[in-house]
């Protein structure tokens, strides 16, 4: 059995709002093998980005981990001091690529300078920036930027969105991280450029054997990228399965409904809709969070919280229908 790179046990995260704590993540249990791409999908407000930030400890001061633990390579990272976490893990073992590459690069520094910074700190300030320049150009070339020598001296606004995201990927992979958290890295990009970036990402993963937690709302993207998928709804993980298994045999009513909502070029039947709204964080219904919108809900759903349980090999679902 391959080692687990990341293990999350019973995690719950709360945000402080007007003196009260609102629970935005509840009962999160998740494992990630090394070299695996796990997609975290859900609608806006489901807590998927919060989970990504929790793992990298990037939550704002108003948030706290209320319960549970996160183990990274067997080490409990929740109790690490901020300094240790920064020195050992963040940017070294774990990296992140965010949604909007425009905001992630500093507009007043040349792209090359920003890559040199990462290399400089990676070398523990031992090598001079001059020595590292060749390495930096090599990296630009590797992520498919044409004319890297020239591009090295340009500013972020001279790069297109797709090129900026390539630079972000390059910077994330410099330290050869074991875990990359990608928070909707292609949402702002065009179709053909999106395909290019995801192709690059797949190849980098193959080369570096990095695990990826890929956060997305687009099921059409993750189907071609991920090994496994975890579906989130209202702060909980409702279903985890192998990618193909999830699409062919969805178990949870939410997953099933979501797939029927998705316009697909091969689909001819009427699109379904899910009645109602995603509940606000902190205002979740009693019982299963999905029951007010679920067409199968029965008495028990209104009273108890379903837990994520194994229903087949490598397929977990949190629904009482499976107990019936």
């Amino acid at each position, binding site marked *: 059995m391959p080692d687990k790179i990341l293990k999350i046990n019973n995690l719950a995260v709360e945000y402080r709002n007007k003196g009260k704590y609102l629970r935005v993540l509840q009962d999160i249990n998740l494992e990630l093998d090394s070299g695996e791409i796990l997609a975290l999908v859900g609608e806006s407000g489901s807590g998927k980005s919060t989970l990504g930030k929790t793992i990298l400890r990037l939550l704002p001061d108003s948030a706290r981990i209320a319960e549970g633990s996160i183990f990274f390579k067997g080490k409990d990272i929740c109790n690490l001091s901020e300094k240790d976490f920064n020195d050992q893990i963040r940017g070294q073992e774990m990296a992140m690529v965010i949604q909007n590459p425009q905001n992630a690069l500093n507009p007043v520094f040349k792209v090359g300078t920003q890559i040199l910074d990462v290399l400089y700190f990676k070398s523990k300030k031992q090598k001079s920036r001059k020595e590292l320049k060749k390495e930096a150009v090599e990296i630009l070339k590797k992520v498919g930027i044409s004319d890297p020598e020239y591009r090295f001296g340009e500013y972020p606004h001279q790069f297109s969105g797709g090129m900026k995201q390539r630079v972000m990927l390059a910077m994330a992979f410099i330290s050869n991280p074991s875990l990359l958290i990608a928070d909707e890295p292609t949402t702002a990009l065009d179709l053909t450029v999106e395909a290019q970036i995801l192709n690059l990402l797949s190849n980098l993963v193959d080369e570096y054997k990095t695990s990826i937690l890929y956060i997305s709302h687009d099921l059409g993207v993750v189907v071609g990228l991920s090994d496994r998928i975890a579906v989130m709804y209202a702060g909980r993980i409702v279903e985890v399965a192998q990618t193909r298994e999830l699409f062919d045999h969805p178990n949870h009513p939410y997953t099933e409904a979501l797939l029927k909502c998705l316009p697909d*070029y091969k689909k001819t039947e009427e699109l379904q809709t899910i009645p109602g709204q995603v509940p606000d964080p902190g205002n979740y219904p009693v019982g299963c969070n999905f029951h007010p919108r679920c067409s199968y809900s029965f008495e028990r759903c209104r009273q108890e919280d379903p837990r994520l349980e194994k229903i087949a090999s490598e397929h977990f679902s949190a629904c009482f229908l499976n107990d019936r």
Partner: protein
Amino acid sequence: MALVEVKNLKKYFVNNDGLLYKLANKGPIKVKAVDDVSFKIEKEDTLAVVGESGCGKTTVARSVLRLIEPTAGEILYKGRSINNFNKQELKAFREDAQMILQDPRSSLNPRFIVEEIVSEPLYIHDQIKDDLNLLDRVWELLDLVGLSKRYSELFPHELSGGQARRVGIARALALQPEFIVCDEPTSGLDISIMSAVLNLMKKLQQEYQLTYLWISHNLHEVRYISNKVAVMYLGKIVEITDTDTIFNNSVHPYTEALFSSLRGINDNWNYQEHEIIEGEVPSPINPPAGCSFHPRCKYSFDKCKKVEPELKEVEIGHLAACHLYN
């Protein structure tokens, strides 16, 4: 007679302000946002315009309603040229032709409540008989888009993205138009809300015999909603035909490339073995000579670099601009 006919539409944005430009004496910068685009939309049809960002699809949408003045070309609505409309005629035209804007939130006035937003077109076009009936009409419109009466008293910031979108649709329907320009009406919406909006638009089309010009970059959605598709690249239409043909028998290499990035959830595929198209869309300020797609095209030959291909019929009702087919 087609409901809407666009003939050789051109829209160039020219920038010659700025002291530095004048000092450098480089001459004005010309962006050919839309360059010689022609198409027809028949009544009750949905023409989808697809393409990557910067290809000019939103500029086409705005020109068709004369929200921006075209540089050249003619737009016919019910056989009459809207370019020469005077103020009154234009106002009458705007009663018939409405638009759903791309950003659901910023297209609603933050100081108006929903009732005021939805009834504003009625005020502008003098269609109010008395105030009591007005509220009924607003409720009726909100009901049409699936919002209950209580929403009429809310401000836009109190609405979710999907609700704000529905208010935008209700406002567009207020004057009972025949023609609606929809500029990416589902972008930024969650899957479940997106499907609700798509179903709503389809239902409204059948009920009120609406005609749509549908701007989108989501090909799955285009398949679902439209019966004609125009593919744009750098300000030009490269292929235009009915939806079934474009999904099954497209001929232009750009269409082929665009649709090759299309995969369904039921297909077995992954990004690693995925055939991808190299490069990015060039800048419209300085487009390549000849066919503007040739630097990215795997079939390109000598002629493509020099001669610009014309949009020609490859079979009945199927036009493409590519030298491979001439």
